[in-house]
């Protein structure tokens, strides 16, 4: 385990972790989707979960805010055990923003109402205040001029930026991203990654399930590599991308066309070349 060696260098390592997974087990009937997942997310850190499709990354993310129940282990958010019967899961979810692969905007509401609905219904905020907050966030993601439209009128990239604004409207302590660019046309991937990068630069704690290795390499503080429901390796990006210690990690990265390139890229994320999508494991 390499985590112990480098943990002292991690961002936010001095304080208690924002989110900690301790031997998390998830089963669907007889199949074990997660077989004892352990890692932590510190305050202000961007942690990227990478690995082949079906390796459990997205499942783990849904366990983080209890959209999935777990059969073993613990998920601890800001010192509170989600499995504890005393925990108010709903209160905890309000502090965790989630962004989905398929956006999951509410098609019957305008863009503005999509962003305002959390504060309106969950926080009981007055409509005026909620919509002011929503408009500010739409400005932040560059879509304030779309406020009155319905999601169907927006491109995929725009919809995902609205979804990010919707999650931010609850002023969460951590943002969970579940393959936020996987359903996008290649030309709109960059605009979503830029918004995420800006969020990371502001110090937002983020957990990102992604196949965007450029993003993981340049924005993540910590990489967790999943394979078949297990964490096979974790560490800072430099270590994972330049000197992976586990053969499966090397195999996975080379599958994506990654051959131990040095972390020298400096160009803007928007202009990065479109990388080949992960092939299905065969």
């Amino acid at each position, binding site marked *: 385990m390499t985590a112990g060696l480098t943990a002292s260098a991690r961002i936010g390592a001095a304080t208690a972790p924002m989110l900690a997974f301790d031997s998390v087990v998830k089963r669907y009937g007889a199949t074990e989707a997660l077989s004892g997942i352990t890692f932590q997310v510190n305050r202000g850190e961007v942690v990227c979960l990478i690995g082949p499709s079906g390796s459990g990354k997205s499942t783990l993310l849904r366990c983080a805010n209890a959209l999935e129940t777990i059969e073993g282990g613990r998920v601890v958010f800001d010192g509170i055990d989600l499995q504890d019967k005393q925990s108010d899961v709903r209160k905890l979810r309000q502090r965790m923003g989630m962004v989905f692969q398929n956006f*999951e905007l509410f098609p*019957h509401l305008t863009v503005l109402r999509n962003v305002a609905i*959390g504060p309106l219904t969950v926080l009981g905020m007055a409509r005026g205040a909620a919509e002011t907050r929503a408009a500010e966030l739409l400005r932040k993601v560059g879509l304030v001029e779309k406020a009155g439209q319905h999601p169907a009128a927006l491109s995929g990239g725009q919809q995902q930026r609205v979804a990010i604004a919707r999650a931010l409207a609850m002023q969460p302590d951590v943002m969970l991203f579940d393959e936020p660019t996987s359903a996008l046309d290649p030309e709109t991937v960059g605009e979503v990654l830029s918004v995420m990068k800006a969020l990371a630069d502001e110090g937002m704690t983020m957990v990102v399930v992604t196949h965007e290795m450029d993003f993981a390499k340049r924005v993540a503080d910590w990489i967790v590599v999943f394979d078949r429901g297990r964490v096979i390796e974790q560490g800072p990006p430099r270590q994972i991308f330049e000197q992976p210690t586990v053969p499966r990690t090397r195999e996975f990265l080379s599958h994506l066309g990654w051959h131990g390139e040095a972390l020298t890229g400096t160009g803007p994320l928007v202009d990065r070349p479109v990388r080949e999508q992960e092939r299905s494991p065969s």
Partner: protein
Amino acid sequence: MTLDWSSVWDNRDRLLAGAGMTVVLTAATMALALPGGLLLAFLRLSPYRAVRGAATSFVEFFRATPLILQIYWVFYVMPAAFDVRLSEFATALLGLSLNVSAFNSETFRAGILSIRAGQWNAGLALGMTKLQVMREIVLPQAVMRVLPALASTWVSLFKDTSLVSIIAVADLSYVALKIRSETYRILEVLTAMAVLYCVMGYPQAKLADWVHRKLKVAE
């Protein structure tokens, strides 16, 4: 064969009153059967097996038996078995509402189940209660989706109200058939009845078609 339209013209007030009753009965039935159907749909989606089972039995009973039997049942059996005595109008309204509620519940249930799980997750992830997700996110979309089906049910209901004439509710059918038996002018009276139903029903059917088309585009 000579036609004598006076049998219709002389009874025009009664026929129009009957037509009015048909419209009132249709509107009143739907006004009860929309919330009734929604309630039954929620019960059928309940996490409790007993609640689900009871609601399902209720719905299947009304879907599997003829409406005419249900109206007779409410009219004859309810007073005898439960000592509940209602006016003819209330009896007709109750019978029709129970029947249409059962059909509407299937429509609402299908609409609710057609909303994908991701929409639920998006609402729950914001910290909403299940009730809030249902009210703010799932139900508005489900209702939009099933409006065409509800419009079809409305048009069927408008015509099915004619069955209440068997328990002497003075709707259009009852009045027309009564005039027929008084005047023996079968052809004239039935033609007038057909024209009245058609004049009222056609715009409703057209409106239902329009709702169909309109919402198909929006999907």
